[in-house]
């Protein structure tokens, strides 16, 4: 299980800011997130960047216990 962090619109759509989700790769973990949070989250995810431990990661990137996977929708700082 990896730790998942959700921000902004992704946090709102998921209804939580932090979670634990199963999966050995980023893609598996995101699929588990979509099942758990539903279609509104899936839509947000499509436009989001995903980081593992602070670095951008694709669906194939491996995920280990203790990793932190973050879902980062389009940003609006400034």
């Amino acid at each position: 299980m990896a730790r998942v962090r959700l921000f902004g619109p992704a946090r709102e759509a998921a209804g939580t800011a932090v979670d634990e989700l199963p999966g050995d790769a980023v893609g598996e973990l995101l699929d588990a997130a979509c099942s758990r949070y539903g279609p509104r989250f899936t839509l947000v995810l499509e436009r989001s960047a995903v980081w593992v431990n602070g670095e951008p990661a694709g669906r194939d990137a491996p995920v280990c216990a203790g990793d932190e996977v973050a879902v980062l929708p389009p940003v609006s700082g400034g």
Partner: protein
Amino acid sequence: MTDGALPVADALEWAVLPSCGAVVTFCGTVRDHSEGRDGVTSLEYECYPEHATERLAAVAGSARSRWPGTGRVALLHRVGELSLGEVSVVVVVSAPHRAEAFEAARHCIDTLKATVPIWKREHWSGGSDWARCAHDLLGTTDVP
């Protein structure tokens, strides 16, 4: 990154160096309107706290590598709830000459907006929602 008022005057004073004749400061302030939304009354910012500060530092580093003459670079961003007129972001750049100070400051705020994990929620007369003018999150070196 801080949830308190941004110390604009202190940052500006800190940026003054004997070798630099120019200090350019950009302040972003809470505006009463945004894309299709009138009567904005407040904003709420959240960030990825474990990585926002390192991304701000990377923005400063990017400016320094492009304008090696740059003296000091300060980047401050506020989180939490902000009311109309309050300062949400401050960029201060000092440099020997004004051209590079202006260019580096502009680069910093443009790059900050595209690369630092921060999200803004707008409260306006019609309700509240996430900002429409959001950018896909880029890496610091991906910004032109």
